[in-house]
């Protein structure tokens, strides 16, 4: 079956511009996560959505970062006024709830963001 897909695969933008990154989770997965992979910071959790509950935004590095999930499926991560330190690979993952525990997270291929 189809896995997690992300678009675009690569994004180059200028400092100060806004960008939107998209994630299509596996069909039927209720949980969706965003992570960031950068040279200086490794892999970091950003935000988590579960069903219709309020998202856990505890990993967002600043208020320039926001995310939404429409209809419990597709998610968009928005970075406003991008800075060079935002350059990273942004990974999306999805999983199912199983017995109150969210099961294995399946990762997409990522979006490589470069801020010039």
């Amino acid at each position, binding site marked *: 079956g189809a896995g997690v897909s992300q678009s675009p695969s690569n994004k180059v933008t200028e400092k100060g511009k806004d960008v939107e990154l998209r994630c299509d989770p596996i069909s039927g997965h209720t949980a969706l996560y965003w992570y960031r992979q950068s040279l200086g910071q490794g*892999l970091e959790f950003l935000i988590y959505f*579960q069903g219709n509950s309020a998202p856990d935004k505890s990993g967002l590095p600043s208020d320039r970062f926001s995310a939404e999930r429409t209809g419990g499926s597709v998610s968009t991560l928005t970075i406003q006024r991008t800075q060079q330190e935002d350059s990273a690979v942004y990974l999306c993952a999805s999983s199912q709830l199983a017995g109150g*525990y969210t099961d294995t*997270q399946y990762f997409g291929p990522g979006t490589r963001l470069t801020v010039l």
Partner: protein
Amino acid sequence: AQSVTQLDSQVPVFEEAPVELRCNYSSSVSVYLFWYVQYPNQGLQLLLKYLSGSTLVKGINGFEAEFNKSQTSFHLRKPSVHISDTAEYFCAVSDIRNAGNMLTFGGGTRLMVKP
């Protein structure tokens, strides 16, 4: 809060040799433990996970890991590596109290298998 340390950033090894990738974690609460592999230009793929039960966990591609609670370690092993195992390996933990299961990752270990 949890933290994960992967002591070796790179591990070179010859094909068919055994390999161990080390992972230590720090946490004030009980955790679940995971190993993920990332092949070049691909996303992360789960190799194995420890939730409870037997401390020796077997995963895909012939990998296994052993949970050692007293040493807070979860080292990954393979008795005989192949060229195709060349990739980056990430150890991760999550707080068992948190149903969201957000992962805290180590810095990664690049396994380089040489012919």
